[in-house]
């Protein structure tokens, strides 16, 4: 693993070439985002046309900056690359300090034009000469939420107070747009997702998926790795890397290009040889790599891995507060294929029957209970407690549609208390009434308990967690 990448995620000082005072320009947003996330080091805008940007003194050239710069964010229009590289050489001969360049500009090799390729070659050639690593070009940049670095030029929607928050998800995206959307969608949940490290890798002219996977593999703060993948030129090496990591921590991949037309689109996008999707799929199954088929499944699964411990088995109880959502959930549950309804003890059933309203359904079918809309907050929580206490249960999907007469705050707070008592059993909670139930969801999520938008979202997350748990357990048996 390359230690130089430390400077990408935890730089002492950052220079931003192509900085701007115009809020509509990328060169402004980078400075703004660094400010917003509370980056503790020095930020040095490089531009001819301004004195200061957001209170930071500008320099005309990179080589003019007097302090050590280890990360350079390169946002200038691509045609200027030649003179910037000349100036970089001057700086390196004088200070020899730059370790990483994040090139967030486009119009390089991805255009497949002679000029685009020449620009990229100039960038990479100069960087290699001084042992500098390059992320991009044609990417949105990097976020490290723990070290408070954000070199992106997009509105991430991540609230300021999230900067420095520990989150266990690290993410690699081959598409800047997917990366940006995933960030923003994550930030728009009832409580914003706090990613750990987040990289959009663009053209992979130098730093590629494998460099970052290896970095995240060794990173103790990374609990789960997420990836948006179109293809990689050396599929075998990618799979070997993923297989090695999957033995230690979960990797969830949204791999696109499943159809032959999709694969064609992927080929012309990143220009990466897409490789046969069927083989990727087989390799993922073989080596315990989790494949997500939708953006929602990707995000739900990443959050589940981050927030919960792995279930020890596949026995998943389905606890619902209403018939319809429960049946809907059961269909998704059966489609998922790797979950099994547990047979709980007679004592558990008796306890549930005593606890719940008379019209509640306990154990029909086995491993299922409908507590009905008549159940109050206490009955929600106590029935869940009874089920969690049963040894036959490995995890629970809990679905409720909060009626107007159910106090949301009380429900949220009591669930938080309960779930802290059972950290070893995952509970996939769906409080499904749109924005009406934001309050309970927010209480849970700010306490580190993820909630899911619909019952089928719960099922996907539960299925993926269970599959990975089984994978690890089987491996132990083999060893």
């Amino acid at each position: 693993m390359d230690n130089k990448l430390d400077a990408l995620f935890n730089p002492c000082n950052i220079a931003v070439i192509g900085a701007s005072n115009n809020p509509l320009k990328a060169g402004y947003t980078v400075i703004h985002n660094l400010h917003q996330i509370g980056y503790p080091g020095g930020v040095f805008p490089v531009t001819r046309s301004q004195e200061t940007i957001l209170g930071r003194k500008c320099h005309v050239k990179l080589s003019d900056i007097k302090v050590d710069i280890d990360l350079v964010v390169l946002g200038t229009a691509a045609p200027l690359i030649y003179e910037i590289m000349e100036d970089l050489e001057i700086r390196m001969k004088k200070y020899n300090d730059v370790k990483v360049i994040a090139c967030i500009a486009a119009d390089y090799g991805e255009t497949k034009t002679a000029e685009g390729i020449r620009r990229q070659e100039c960038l990479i050639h100069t960087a290699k000469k001084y042992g500098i690593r390059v992320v991009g070009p044609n990417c949105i940049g990097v976020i490290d939420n723990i070290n408070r670095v954000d070199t992106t030029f997009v509105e991430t929607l991540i609230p300021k107070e999230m900067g420095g928050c520990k989150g266990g998800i690290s993410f690699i995206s081959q598409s800047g747009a997917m990366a940006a959307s995933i960030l923003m969608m994550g930030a728009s949940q009832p409580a914003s997702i706090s990613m750990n490290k987040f990289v959009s890798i663009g053209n992979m002219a130098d730093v590629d998926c494998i460099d970052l996977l290896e970095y995240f593999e060794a990173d103790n703060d990374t609990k789960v790795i997420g990836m948006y993948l179109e293809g990689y030129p050396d599929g075998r090496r990618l799979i070997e890397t993923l297989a090695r990591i999957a033995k230690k921590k979960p990797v969830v991949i949204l791999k696109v290009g499943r159809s032959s037309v999709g694969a064609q689109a992927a080929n012309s996008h990143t220009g990466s040889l897409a490789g046969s999707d069927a083989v990727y799929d087989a390799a993922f199954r073989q080596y315990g790599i989790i494949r997500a088929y939708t953006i929602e499944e990707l995000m739900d699964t990443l959050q589940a891995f981050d927030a919960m411990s792995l279930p020890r088995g596949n026995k998943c109880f389905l606890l619902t507060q209403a018939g319809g959502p429960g049946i809907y959930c059961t269909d998704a549950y059966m489609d998922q294929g790797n979950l099994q309804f547990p047979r709980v003890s007679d004592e558990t059933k008796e306890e549930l029957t005593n606890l719940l309203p008379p019209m509640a359904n306990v154990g029909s079918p086995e491993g299922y209970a409908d507590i009905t809309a008549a159940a109050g907050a206490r009955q929600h929580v106590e029935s869940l407690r009874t089920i969690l206490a049963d040894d036959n249960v490995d995890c629970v999907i809990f679905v409720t549609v909060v009626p107007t007469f159910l106090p949301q705050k009380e429900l949220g707070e009591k669930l938080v208390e309960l779930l802290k008592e059972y950290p070893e059993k995952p509970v996939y909670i769906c409080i499904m009434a749109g924005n009406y139930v934001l309050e309970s969801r927010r209480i849970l999520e700010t306490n580190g308990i993820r909630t899911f938008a619909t019952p089928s979202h719960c099922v996907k997350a539960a299925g993926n967690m269970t599959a990975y748990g089984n994978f690890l357990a089987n491996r132990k048996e083999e060893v």
Partner: protein
Amino acid sequence: MSRFLNELEARDCLSEYQIPMAKSFLIRDKSEIAGLTAQMDFPVVMKILSADIRHKTEAGCVFVGVGAEETEAVYNQILANAKAYDSQAVIDGVLVQELAAKGMEVIAGMKKDPQFGPVIMVGTGGIYVEVFKDVAIRLVPLNKEEARKMLEETKLCEIIRGARGIEYDEAELISILLKLSNLAQNWPDIEEIDINPLFLYEKGRGAKGVDALIKISG
């Protein structure tokens, strides 16, 4: 450039790895027919061996259920039909093959993916492989557990495990898949192996490959 091994070479290559194949002999000359009668159980299958004739059935070059006394006549007929079908075709001889008892039709094979290297394949065999698309794949090297899981991804697995009362020899199939994995690892020049059909017999009775295709590079 890549080329196909002829049927006999393919069979020998697979037999080398203890993959059970139907017994075959090559007759290059009429004089060899007499010696054959002692070595085979009749009836047999007779077919042309020629890389130039791909569609042997259409060319009238496959005869199934040939009795011992008919061999010479069929031999002549096959050569005549081959000549009529394609007078330029290079003929290696006539293949005499054991008429294998029918079993569950399975396809087993290997294909080299340009990115991932050798991939092992198993599924429902027969002439409708492309229609049913009931195949599962795994990267090499394959272990026993993965071979089992791979088989479980196919509908074939249900049949093998007794969907209609008959259980087939799953252990033998898995052992064949492992042998294919081994073969693929040892011979990087092999680009593709297709054993179809592979007749899988009832539990404990093994399997027998009837048709095999091997493509090699160079």
